[in-house]
């Protein structure tokens, strides 16, 4: 039976990890926090932002602090699925030619899929199984990926030419979609201090893979009252414009609402947030906090929204405002 002390130790570890990552990444506090939420909720993260905002650096920092195996895949149009998952090679063994599986870069605890939307859909879909099932199937054989396994993908929202937008099915497999914002002037100043001088920041590993798995397990037991659960589900239901009582914003701008995975994402990450906040229960605020990253990539906006320049976040905000606690 878990005790308060153990829980407090776990919380301390996560907070230490958060602070360690913060040493290597200037600003982006919310992004760091949300990445950690996704890690402990056992989910994948899609980071979206213009180049140079430290997305890749963030993923590297996370991998260092978690002392987990890390691999990076730079997605390009000519990248093949086998380049991601690995392939069977014919090798000579005892005078015979036999197939031997050569694992691809996806076989790591932390996989950085850089500029994921530059690869063809075929290659993108090679990640589908890995992200959802935590397995890779090559030929007739299925290989288990290491645990914990996490895909952190990045994509650039401005260079659309020669890109392949991720299909909804794949987007849905990302627990969170995080928008990496341009840093403030003060943060930029600190970034300069860190990157254009000889000062080096050493990041210490704080968490191990087994610890992460244990913390995930503990967090899953966190209680959630009916009221909070009802609130989370109401949010997801409200994203469906065809449902009776859907908010005006949903009816007007949403083409397809969020899937049940969205509800799972909200509940799981809300629990992690409550845990990180040192609480033993999930609050409405936890749900509200995780609703944006959990829903924004799951809402398919219609043409009117695009024409009006309405973002998913704006729609989510209206939905949240419309639901009475």
């Amino acid at each position, binding site marked *: *039976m*878990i*005790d*308060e002390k153990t*829980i407090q130790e776990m919380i301390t570890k996560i907070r230490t990890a958060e602070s360690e990552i913060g040493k290597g990444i200037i600003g982006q506090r919310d992004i760091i926090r949300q990445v950690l939420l996704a890690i402990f909720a056992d989910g994948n993260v899609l980071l979206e932002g213009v180049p140079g905002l430290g997305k890749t650096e963030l993923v590297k920092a996370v991998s260092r602090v978690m002392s987990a195996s890390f691999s990076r895949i730079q997605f390009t149009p000519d990248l093949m699925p086998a380049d991601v998952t690995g392939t069977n090679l014919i090798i000579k063994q005892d005078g015979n030619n036999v197939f031997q599986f050569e694992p691809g870069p996806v076989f790591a605890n932390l996989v950085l899929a850089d500029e994921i939307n530059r690869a063809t859909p075929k290659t993108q879909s090679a990640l589908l199984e890995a992200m959802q099932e935590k397995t890779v199937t090559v030929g007739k054989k299925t290989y288990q990926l290491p645990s914990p396994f996490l895909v952190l993908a990045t994509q650039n929202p401005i260079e659309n030419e020669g890109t392949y937008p991720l299909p909804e099915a794949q987007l849905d497999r990302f627990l969170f979609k995080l928008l990496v914002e341009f840093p403030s002037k003060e943060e930029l100043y600190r970034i300069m201090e860190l990157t254009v001088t000889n000062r080096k920041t050493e990041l210490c590993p704080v968490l191990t893979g087994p610890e992460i798995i244990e913390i995930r397990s503990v967090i899953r*037991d*966190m*209680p*959630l*009252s*009916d*009221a*909070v659960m009802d609130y989370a589900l109401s949010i997801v239901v409200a994203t469906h414009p065809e449902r009776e009582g859907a908010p005006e914003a949903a009816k007007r701008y949403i083409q397809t609402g969020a899937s049940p995975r969205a509800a799972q994402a909200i509940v799981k990450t809300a629990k992690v947030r409550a845990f990180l*906040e040192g*609480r*033993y*229960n*999930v*609050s*409405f*605020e936890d749900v509200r906090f995780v609703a944006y990253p959990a829903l924004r990539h799951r809402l398919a906006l219609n043409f009117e929204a695009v024409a009006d320049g309405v973002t998913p976040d704006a729609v989510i905000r209206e939905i949240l405002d419309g639901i009475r*606690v």
Partner: protein
Amino acid sequence: MDAEIRVFAGRVRRRLREQSVVRELFWWTTGGLLLSLILSLVSLAVPFPMALPFIAVVLALSVIGGMAAGVLKAPTLMESALRADEQGRFEERVSTALFLQGREDAFSVLQKKDAVSRIRDFRVRKEFPVRIRKRQAALFLALAILLGVSGMADTPARQTARVQSDVKRTGKEKLARLEKVEQRLKEQEGLSETELLELEEQLERTGMDLKEAQSYEDLKKAEERFLKKLEMAAEQAEPGQAKEALQKAAQESLAAEQAEQEQLAQEAQEALEKAEDGDRRDKQEAYEKLKKLSELSGDQNLGKKAEAYQKSGFSSGERADARQALSENQKNLTGGSKMADGNNSQTGSQTGSQNSSQSGNQNGSQNGNQNGSQNGNQNGSQNGNQNGNQNDSQNGNQNSNQNGSQNGNQNGNQNGSQNGNQNGGQNGNSGNQNGGRNGNGNNGGGSGNGGTGTGGGSGWNYGSKEGREGYAKTRENITIPEGVLGEDENLTGIANGNQTSQMVQSEQSRAWSGNKVSYGEVSGAYKEKAIRKIDGSNYPGKLKEQIRNYFDGLD
């Protein structure tokens, strides 16, 4: 820990219920006040007798409704916990702890412990104050003041409404009194089922009349009709226990009416005295009491004086006149009361002659009835007394009385006993008188002379050919078949020796004796008139044709 959380949530819930009740009570009563104010303002311009009860009901309902709504809208225990979370920024600790009641896993225990540690410093009463905002309170007060002011105002519409309301109330009192009379009669042995049925029917009619009465005069008439019916029943009843009971009931009812008027006169007297130094409201009240008394007692003089008093703006001079008229009214009431008492004593000795005893009653109160009584006297003792006085006084009385509306009453009375009398002397009476008789349907052929009568028969016709057919037929002219103009020799009575009997023949009578008009003449004239009427009308052609066919068929 579970109990602690539950108790805390319960405290919050109680407090929220108090808040809810106060809030709902405020809004409901504000709504009630607004509605009451509208009703009150309407009643200033439009007579609305039920305005005050309505307002009282609206206010009472708004209070009850507000409290009920407050209780019904009170939050549940979980909602209360959520409110506490919100108010205390507990981040759903309380509601989750309540949700985890009975669960003992590690996380649940830790969670509840955490929640309990947070709520200890939470002051429920302070965090959930029961108060009404200043603007709301100001609105409430303003409405209450406006309602009070509008309620105090007295307008003609309000005065009318007050009278209408009092008429209704008095009507109910009268009805209750009459019902008691009926009840006593039902308990009395000796009354036949027919008599009881008739009385019940009459009471039912009277009840309707009393309910529909728009003025005190209507009430008076309705009650009089019932009493008259009672008297008639008493008159027609066979001597015995039932007759006595009916007579007694009639006398008691009269006495009760008398007492009511005396009481009213007393109240009017007091109101007048109060009005002397009182404000306008007191004066208005005195006027209303005088008016009521005048209408209930049929005292037109008092009514006029009361009107004059009000129209003069309640001047001292007019008040003195009104007081004088009131004194006269009181004297009359006292006189009538004494007469009624005298009659009661006579009843015992004159059981054999109903008319005589009845005359006593009627002398005391009504001139019209006096005629009936005189006929009765004629019947019993025409030879002795009547001859000596009949010409001078009896005729005179009859003439004067029959002019008024009491002729109808006279007819009613004569129904039972006048047949004999008419033979003696009244058969040749005026047409109006005949009209009354016609309704009774009991009159036989007239053969007497000397009847006089110039009065218009406008009384209530109880009779029909079968003896009763409603009382709406008035001023109905009939022909007295085989009528013979009154000559002394046609009198069935025996003239006195002085030969002082005087026959007066009515010249204004609308009745005719024995004249006959042929059916063809009547029918033809009627047909012609009808055809002319429908020709000039816009009835559909088919209907016109049908009417013409009908008249042709009559020929």
